[in-house]
């Protein structure tokens, strides 16, 4: 029990340390230090899971474990990358960045371990707020616009989710039960809750968590925030925060599936997923800003996960695997694109050309991650997307399967038309002189992630497979 609290509080201690460290350079080392301790504790907790806390509020179940694992790995990689990155940005004070990153890690951890939906909501809201100063790191007109949009839309979304939670709690009062927002009791009593309130609650929760996740048509903040945030913040937004919001949605999914409204909830998710993929396919084409393009890719992949949840059964395993694949691959994409951004001092395809010559490692990583994220073998996302689309056909849901494949193809073409000229192409004649060169500090972290993505495509370790199966079981997925 104390172990769990220590686990959540440890990053806060790190945040305090970062805040109190006066020296800009030395402060950046606080990040990897605490991130590695966090990763070590995560591994320990995965092997020896402590029993639920006395009130049942804190417990690490299989779904929480998966999210925690991917968050912790991603954060550790981003923290290692941050040392090299912040070295290039020595003039900018990084006190707020380091502190907010570690507070965010603490909140993300709390999201994964809480079994009480109220506590989960508080932690999720905290991750939203702490990300705002990170998006604003560059302190210019464009980044403030992105920050404002992000802050407003996500705050409103998450407020609507709170109302949904209140509705859910009230449905237990009307049904004459003790009020409880504990996940376990909500699941076991799901079918006895008052139907009208429960229905309203599901809609509000879906809208709320959906906007945080960036499911279309609630995704409008995403391109701006992802485009303007520094690469490592983008990686955490697209890999970490999205998974936290997804985990919250999965909790609602668990309750919905235990009630009589599971089928309806699945249909809505399926619809939103397809709309998300369609939006991504349209806006991905002719995108001249490669970081904004990544945002639409993120919309696409939360859409894919939503479709998998909508299909249910065998696709659930794929959904969870895709959650991890997407987070890790997005990490590579954002970190390597951040490097290219530094090297060219631009993120427009007009100026960024021939990255393979200027920054060979980052360019190659960006290219490989592009192939991975669009579902090319032998990388991880191929396996999970294949699982999902084959389930659609097995369930004789031909329309979904066909649309899924068409959108994937369109997105591949759209993304290739941006990525290939950036990476291959000829170097532009007039090249701005920038201090950035590929070094071990900024290349090894994304390279490590890329290795993991490749590994997941070829071989999924047995413990991870068990964990995925157990988590899919929690969602109601058959073997």
């Amino acid at each position, binding site marked *: 029990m104390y172990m769990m609290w220590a686990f959540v509080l440890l990053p806060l201690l790190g945040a305090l340390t970062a805040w109190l460290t006066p020296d800009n350079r030395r402060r950046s080392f606080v990040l990897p230090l605490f991130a590695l301790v966090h990763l070590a504790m995560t591994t320990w907790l995965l092997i020896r899971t402590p029993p639920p806390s006395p009130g049942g509020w804190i417990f690490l179940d299989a779904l929480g474990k998966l999210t925690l694992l991917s968050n912790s790995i991603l954060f550790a990689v981003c923290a290692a990358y941050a040392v090299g990155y912040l070295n290039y940005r020595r003039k900018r004070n990084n006190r707020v960045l380091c502190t907010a990153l570690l507070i965010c890690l603490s909140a993300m951890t709390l999201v994964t371990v809480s079994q009480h939906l109220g506590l989960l*909501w508080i932690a999720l809201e905290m991750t939203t707020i702490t990300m705002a100063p990170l998006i604003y790191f560059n302190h210019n*007109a464009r980044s403030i*616009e992105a920050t404002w949009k992000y802050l407003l839309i996500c705050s*409103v979304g998450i407020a609507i989710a709170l*109302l949904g939670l209140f509705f859910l709690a009230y449905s237990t009062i009307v049904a004459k039960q003790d*009020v409880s927002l504990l996940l376990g009791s909500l699941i076991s009593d799901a079918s006895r809750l008052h139907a*009208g309130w429960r229905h309203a609650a599901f809609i509000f929760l879906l809208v709320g968590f959906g906007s945080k996740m960036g499911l279309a048509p609630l995704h409008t903040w995403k391109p701006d925030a992802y485009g303007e945030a520094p690469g490592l913040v983008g990686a955490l937004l697209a890999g970490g925060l999205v998974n936290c919001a997804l985990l919250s949605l999965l909790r609602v999914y668990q309750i919905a599936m235990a009630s009589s409204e599971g089928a309806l909830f699945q249909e809505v998710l399926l619809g939103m997923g397809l709309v998300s993929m369609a939006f991504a396919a349209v806006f991905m084409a002719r995108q001249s800003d490669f970081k904004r393009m990544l945002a639409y890719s993120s919309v696409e992949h939360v859409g894919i996960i939503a479709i998998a949840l909508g299909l249910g059964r065998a696709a659930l395993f794929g959904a969870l695997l895709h959650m991890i694949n997407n987070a890790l691959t997005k990490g590579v994409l954002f970190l390597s694109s951040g490097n290219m951004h530094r090297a060219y001092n631009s993120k427009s395809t007009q100026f960024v050309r021939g990255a393979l010559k200027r920054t060979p490692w980052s360019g190659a990583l960006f290219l490989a991650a592009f192939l991975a994220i669009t579902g090319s073998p032998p990388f991880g996302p191929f396996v999970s997307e294949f699982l999902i689309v084959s389930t659609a056909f097995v369930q004789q849901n031909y329309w979904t399967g066909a649309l899924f494949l068409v959108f994937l193809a369109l997105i591949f073409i759209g993304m290739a038309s941006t990525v290939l000229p950036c990476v291959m192409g000829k170097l532009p004649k007039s090249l701005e002189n920038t201090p950035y060169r590929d070094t071990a500090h900024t290349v090894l972290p994304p390279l490590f992630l890329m290795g993991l993505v490749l590994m997941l495509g070829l071989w999924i370790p047995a413990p991870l497979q068990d964990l995925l199966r157990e988590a899919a079981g929690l969602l109601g997925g058959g073997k």
Partner: protein
Amino acid sequence: MNSLADQLLVLCLLLNFTVLGTSRLAFSVRAVALQGVILGVLPALIHPFSWHLVLIVVSIMLAKGALIPILIMRAIRKAEIQREFEPFIGYIPSLVLGALFTSLAFIFAARLPLAPEHEGLLFVPASIATLMCGFLVLMGRRKAISQVIGYLLMENGIFIFGLLLADAMPVMVEAGALLDLLVGVFVMGIVINHISREFSTLDTSRLSALREE
């Protein structure tokens, strides 16, 4: 006691319309703050006495009635603006839409039954109507501060509903939600400050560099 609670809820609804109909920012902030104070009084009227309840009453009044208004007033003073200017949705249309949303809220609420102990109270329609009015302000106004006021109105709407659960919710959840709200408004205040320095205006329609062609 219940009739007094209902009267206070009607007052909340009226305050929505004051915010919808005025261009003066300081006035709107005061209206939202007054709403916050009413929100603090309400749980005392519908739930039996407990120390848990006292804590909630005090913290809601302190946060929504004092701290948050002070934060926003400071942002208004620093940015040196007094009025909303040329909103996307004018004041008269806002009022009409507000009335429409309020009546829709009553229709919506009629379909959802209340627990016997809350029978006949206006909590649900008041909550939904305030939420919608807040949304209207958020969407219809240009100035960043007006948008924050709209957000606060929405939050008030959500809290109105939350009051029905006041003695059932664990105190930690309530406190956490309020704390998050406070920190959120604090961060928004800082961002507003930066917007006014960067653009020398708080007009969010100027924030359009990132639009998709």
